[in-house]
């Protein structure tokens, strides 16, 4: 619960100079893969100035594997080449989002998505696109702040 006693908040997700990489990997490898993305930036003299953000698309045929899209905000422009297997966007800009802190151990992400859906229905909002998981480090572990875009009316 946040200070207002509400688990779902209206917020925004705005980050600049975003290095993006997509991979289908075992779910437990997300941290390792994101570290590789960070090293890619550091080797070019850049550095992350925001947390790792990721979307996760489950695969029906294998629940240990998922399609991840990683977003890493940097302090400058990363010039991608075809060999880099990545792309660069000047920004990730969601002006209006719903956000929930997902930190209860064992709680499935789907439960948080459902809470956001219920909030949206109650407040006559329409959600669109993917769920963006902003990974927040806490004492050697991570929790996610999940954002979903609210369609402008």
């Amino acid at each position, binding site marked *: 619960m946040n200070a207002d006693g509400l688990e779902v908040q*209206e917020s925004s997700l*705005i*980050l600049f100079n975003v290095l993006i990489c997509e991979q289908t990997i075992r779910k437990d490898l997300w941290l390792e893969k994101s570290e590789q993305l960070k090293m890619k930036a*550091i080797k070019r003299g850049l550095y992350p*100035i925001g947390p790792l953000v990721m979307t996760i698309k489950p695969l029906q045929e294998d629940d240990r594997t998922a399609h991840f899209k990683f977003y890493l*905000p940097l*302090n400058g422009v990363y010039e991608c080449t075809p060999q880099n297997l990545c792309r660069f966007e000047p920004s990730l800009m969601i002006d*209006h989002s719903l956000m929930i802190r997902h930190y209860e151990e064992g709680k499935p992400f789907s439960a948080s998505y459902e809470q956001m859906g219920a909030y949206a229905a109650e407040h006559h909002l329409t959600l669109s696109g993917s769920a963006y998981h902003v990974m927040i480090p806490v004492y050697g572990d991570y929790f996610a702040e999940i954002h979903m875009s609210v369609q402008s009316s």
Partner: protein
Amino acid sequence: MVIENDSIELRNVVSRKYLIEDSQFPKAMYDFEQLLTDRKLTPTGTLFFSLDTLPSEGHFAVEIYATVEEDFVSQNTDLFFRSYFTVSNMIMTYYTGPVERLTKSAYAELIQFIEDNDWALASPFFQFFKGDRDFQYIELKVGVH
């Protein structure tokens, strides 16, 4: 004293870049604070800046930041808004007293620490203004790898 395993982890951060001489820094700070007032933003207390070039080199590029209560600020050419601002794997030192002299020795201390550990700089230097009305101090942080 250098503290390891430090980081910056902030939400709702606005910033503006300036290219200035050493003596113009107070003016840039004033301009930034005025900008926050003009945009009717509510600072939550953390004011800091980053330096892309060392202060001894005359002109330097500086970016001034503030955390604000607002979780959305429309973008324009004056002010950048980021929902999150984080830099990990940093070292930090802090000081209070004659700022000009101590700032130079704080930079020197962190640079020496990086050299002694055979590390490299992974971010610009960030200076945070901390404390209250009775006691102020400065934290100097830089990312390493």
